[in-house]
């Protein structure tokens, strides 16, 4: 990967501004920090000014279709684009009411705050032209802002488009101003639109306003969130600082405008990249230092010492040293050492360090040439965690302990932010000039639906704990299991003894649950990935039902090579177990039970079921995952139930270019699934519900315009008479709202099965939140469901409860999970392909849960 990044970078080395430092020098800090935050979200290129001005012709449009705005302003925030997609109006059965009815009401506190606006509040959008035309955005802004006519008004301006909360006296207003050079400039301000407060454009302007406010509260924007470096949480033994902060959003929920804030932490490494390199050099030795360095650093984000920018490390240029020169914007050559001394009074201590290379993509113009920035390691701080750190248990534990917040702790943080906003003079002033009033925290009423019964072979059980029925499982017979007659176990010589005792244990736990395990053929090999693979290639024949590998270490290459071979080249279910896991004293029984259940599933067995009131229902899960190996590729996974009981699953998976539409393969997958259903049930399913995960911001329209029609057409093609009815539900694990339950004086996570379908939902969507997990520590995140297409016409209550039921059916975990089981299966499948095999699994395995 690094090689490619480098090639990419090298290829661009010839571009004119070869060194970013020169660029920085030109603009010490973007002026826009304070005066035109609008640039970040609605950044319009002033190059296109003339083009834009031609389009307007001075007329006034008050409607606001998202797409036209997009054309005009260039880049609209992606999640805002989703808001203009109204799906509910097409769903007749929920047009009036989308709320469910069952369950016990529960009072919940949210992390949302009311933002009140005067009833007749409007946002006025103006277009500004300059005569003579001025190209410099900063000058355009400076001229407009300094004009007395506008100086006391609340405004957001990006150089072309001006937003005001008060209407100017005239539709077209001409102002004249003078540059300090004495040149007269005429500014023409033309009203183009009047926007109601519910318009997505207004949401964007509100976001800008809050961005300014948080900056006034001494927070810094990194990515989309805001952090407070003055109150860091320190983990010195791991060289980490955690900056507390918030993710914020302003949005229209049901009937009101709400400000949402959620706690977020930014992890910063308290050392410079140079120090990191030195440490690494010491650990790896010189010989493989450069490779190790590239492997660890490329892709990480750094903060520079001297400005507020963040950069991604795309490459390391070992041939450039601080004593080398680069060309400044004015054409003069200067060494990096001199430059930093002159510009920032910084003396570089290490003159042998290489430079980090970052490719700068223009925000304004996607086609613009990619430029390179050279950064000095000594002046860069690392953010985030290097890949290997995430497998450092001690470190992750330390981070988790510091960042995990109890429901009460979380509430206090958010309340403090609200308080700060209300107390800060500047912040209050900013809100007031826009006519906004920051109101109180919103509470709402949710419902807790009853817990579900689990059906096991001989009886229906009501689990002791709804969240985890592993104890209940231990003695119960599972629904169906194939017995394991011919199978292989591959282990290293060292692991022979533990393997033996494990196999004994496996047989012992298998019997009561109804899983018969015969004695396997045991093959002992040397401790290296090639030896394992070689043994598999040698001993696997068509009669082998399953291959178990006892891996000597969690080195990725063992797992990857085995999985790759056994899922595509020679399709046989496989089970990898770490030898280390089997050494855990006293745990062997429960480990063996878990593995036995997993093996049953891989062989096509069924563990438990739920009461599903709908007969002939197929549920489908779709997920998308980026390929870890190949940046331009994504893995699309599709998992569909193939029996009415929803216990057997069919899966398909495909690797495709990121540029291709996910929809393209869905049709093939869907037809495959319907065929399979037909074969098993001698008919088509009456209903299909698709749970679509892995949807990014701004993709909703694509989903509705391409994916849903593809799914529909495959369903229609399947039958000439009555085709199955289809529903499509978008599943999102990440969402802004959080719900906490008040109990006495404190706050708790809401109980399992809590559903919220009012207040924090969107008026234009058929959506709801569901809590289908428990957490003993920390705060729960609800899962957000948005029904974007619904032919089934199920009552909202039924849709919600069915979704809840589906969260019980993930066989890798005897308990509830945060998403419907088909989504989790699809996720597991894509993850396996994206991380390990990078190859589509064989169709022969499509009927089993081989990817568990």
């Amino acid at each position, binding site marked *: 990967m690094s090689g490619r990044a480098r090639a990419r970078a090298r290829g661009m080395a010839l571009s004119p501004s070869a060194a970013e430092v020169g660029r920085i020098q030109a603009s010490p800090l973007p002026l826009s920090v304070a005066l035109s935050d609008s640039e970040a979200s609605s950044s319009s290129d002033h190059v296109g000014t003339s083009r834009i001005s031609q389009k307007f012709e001075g007329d006034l449009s008050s409607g606001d279709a998202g797409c036209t705005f997009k054309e005009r302003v260039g880049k609209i925030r992606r999640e805002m684009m989703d808001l203009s997609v109204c799906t509910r109006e097409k769903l007749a059965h929920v047009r009036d009411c989308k709320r469910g009815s069952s369950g016990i009401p529960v009072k919940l506190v949210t992390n949302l705050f009311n933002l009140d606006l005067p009833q007749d509040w409007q946002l006025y959008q103006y277009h500004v032209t300059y005569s003579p035309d001025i190209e410099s955005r900063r000058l355009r802004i400076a001229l407009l802002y300094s004009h007395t006519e506008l100086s006391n008004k609340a405004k957001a301006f990006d150089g072309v488009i001006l937003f005001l909360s008060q209407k100017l006296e005239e539709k077209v207003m001409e102002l004249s101003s003078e*540059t*300090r050079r004495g040149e007269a400039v005429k500014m023409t301000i033309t009203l183009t639109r009047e926007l109601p407060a519910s318009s997505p454009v207004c949401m964007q302007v509100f976001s800008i306003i809050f961005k300014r406010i948080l900056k006034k509260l001494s927070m810094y924007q990194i990515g989309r969130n805001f952090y407070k*470096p003055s109150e860091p949480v320190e983990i010195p033994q791991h060289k980490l600082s955690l900056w507390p902060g918030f993710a914020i959003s302003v949005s229209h929920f049901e009937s009101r405008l709400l400000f949402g804030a959620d706690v977020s932490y930014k992890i910063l490494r308290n050392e410079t990249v140079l120090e990191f390199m030195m440490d690494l050099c010491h650990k790896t030795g010189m010989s493989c230092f450069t490779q190790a360095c590239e492997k660890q650093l490329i892709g990480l984000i750094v903060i520079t010492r001297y400005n507020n920018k963040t950069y991604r490390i795309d490459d390391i240029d070992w041939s450039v040293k601080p004593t080398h020169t680069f060309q400044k914007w*004015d054409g003069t050559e200067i060494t990096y050492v001199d430059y930093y001394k002159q510009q920032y009074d910084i003396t570089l201590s290490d003159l042998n360090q290489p430079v980090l290379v970052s490719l700068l993509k223009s925000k304004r113009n996607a086609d613009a040439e990619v430029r390179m920035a050279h950064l000095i390691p000594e002046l860069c*701080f690392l953010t985030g965690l290097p890949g290997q750190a995430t497998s450092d248990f001690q470190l992750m534990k330390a981070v988790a302990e510091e960042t995990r917040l109890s429901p009460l702790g979380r509430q206090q943080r958010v309340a403090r932010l609200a308080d700060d906003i209300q107390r800060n003079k500047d912040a209050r002033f900013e809100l007031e000039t826009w006519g906004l009033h920051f109101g109180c925290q919103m509470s709402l009423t949710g419902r807790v639906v009853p817990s579900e019964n689990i059906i096991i072979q001989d009886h229906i059980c009501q689990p002791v704990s709804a969240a985890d029925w592993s104890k209940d499982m231990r003695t119960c017979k599972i629904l169906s299991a194939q017995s394991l007659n011919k199978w292989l176990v591959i282990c290293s010589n060292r692991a022979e003894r533990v393997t033996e005792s494990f196999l004994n244990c496996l047989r012992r736990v298998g019997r009561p649950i109804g899983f018969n395990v015969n004695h396997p053929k045991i093959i002992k090999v040397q401790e290296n990935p090639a030896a394992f693979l070689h043994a598999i290639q040698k001993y696997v024949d068509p009669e082998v039902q399953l291959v178990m590998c006892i891996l000597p270490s969690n080195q990725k290459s063992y797992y990857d090579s085995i999985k790759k071979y056994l899922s595509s080249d020679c399709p046989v279910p496989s089970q990898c177990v770490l030898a280390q896991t089997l050494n855990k004293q006293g745990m062997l029984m429960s480990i063996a039970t878990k593995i036995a259940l997993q093996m049953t599933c891989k062989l096509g067995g069924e563990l438990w079921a739920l009461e599903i009131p709908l007969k002939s229902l197929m549920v489908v899960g779709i997920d998308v995952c980026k390929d870890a190996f190949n940046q331009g590729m994504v893995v699309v996974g599709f998992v569909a139930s193939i029996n009415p009981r929803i216990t057997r699953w069919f899966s398909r998976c495909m690797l495709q270019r990121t540029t291709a539409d996910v929809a393209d393969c869905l049709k093939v997958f869907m037809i495959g699934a319907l065929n399979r259903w037909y074969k098993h049930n001698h008919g088509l399913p009456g209903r299909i519900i698709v749970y679509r995960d892995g949807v990014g911001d701004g993709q909703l329209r694509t989903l509705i315009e391409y994916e849903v029609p593809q799914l529909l057409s495959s369903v229609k093609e399947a039958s000439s008479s009555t085709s199955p009815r289809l529903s499509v539900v978008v599943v999102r694990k990440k969402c802004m709202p959080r719900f906490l339950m008040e109990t006495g004086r404190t706050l708790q996570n809401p109980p399992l099965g809590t559903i919220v379908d009012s207040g924090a939902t969107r008026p234009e969507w058929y959506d709801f939140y569901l809590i289908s997990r428990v957490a003993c520590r920390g705060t729960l995140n609800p899962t957000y469901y948005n029904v974007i297409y619904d032919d089934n016409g199920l009552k909202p209550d039924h849709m919600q409860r069915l979704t809840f039921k589906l969260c019980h059916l993930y066989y890798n975990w005897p308990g509830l999970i945060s998403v419907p089981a088909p989504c989790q299966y699809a996720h597991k499948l894509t993850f396996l392909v994206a991380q390990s095999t990078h190859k589509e699994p064989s169709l022969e395995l499509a009927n089993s849960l081989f990817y568990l």
Partner: protein
Amino acid sequence: MAENNIEFTSVVDGDVEEVPNKKIIKFNPPLYKQRYQFVKKLVEQHQPKKVADLGCGDVCLLMILKYQKCIEELVGVDINEGRLKWNGSRLSPCMGDHLDPRELDLVITLYHGSVLEKDCRLLGFDLVACIELIEHFDSEDLAKFPEVVFGYMSPAMIVISTPNSDFNSLFPSAVFRDSDHKFEWSRMQFQTWALDVANHYGYSVEFTGVGEPPAGAEDVGCCTQIGVFRKKAKATESAVLEHHGEHVYEVIYTTSYPSLQQMDYCRRVVTYLVYREVNRMKQRCQVSLRQHELEPESADPGNPTRKFISDPPVPVLTEADKAMEMIPQPFCIGDKFYVPLERIIAYPRLGHICGNVEKLREFLFDVVELNCDGSAVKVDLHDCGDY
């Protein structure tokens, strides 16, 4: 955008080299930058603690000066409130200032007000810069100016720059360089005024300039003429510290930088440095332990590959290390590794920040584990926390 900014900055500053269509004389670096560089050099030479920029405008000079390590208070005054408002946040500390704090405190304040009004918060400054300011005054204001700046503020040093009209002969048009200029002085006029003011208020003055004239026209002098005024008599401390007086200016923006003078930042930095040094010593110890185990394998000899970063700290004995031979050495007891505080404080940077062992111990209290008598830092010899 960056390219545009340059132009913009210079335009707003009303620079001569940007006269439209008739760019005959071009300065490199641009003249406005040369002026700022001049002030910056003065700061480097004289190390003032308190610096004010009168007529700070777009705060460009303050942006440059905020990186100077000696300055502890930086003030900008301007009559244009709007410009201060939008530009204020450009002066706020950046994220890096929190990660690697300055040594000394720095407070930056922007005031909205007229330079011709007295505000006691501008008393006691070491350097006051009036860059391209006086030519914007009409004669009445110009007459008031010295009394406020020289008489009332009375800083140790004042730097005043203004256009040199002798140079204007090289420009094609015969107008002032900026439409707001009320006058442009020849060198003679400026120097007469300056000497007069200097004498009256007890200052000495030196004349210089930036923007060298082109070859052949040396006699017109520099494009911008500069007077550097220095107070002859040291201000009596009492007069300087009398800060009761009127607050006429309105504070538009103020920010305070994190620094090692602040206890929490100092403790943080000390903790990190201690951890770093202890870890380095520990690594060295681990290496030597390993070498004991698998003898003769010595550290890899003279590395054939090019050095990509300067030598890793471990194999090289620096001067500081050699000096430390005398100081208590780190030691192991069981699987614990101890580094005496005396050893830690012998590292120059830590020594510089903490001063003595007691102070260091105070800093480390409750943050880092010490041995029972509090004389050494105690860590596990073998940890899995490294990656």
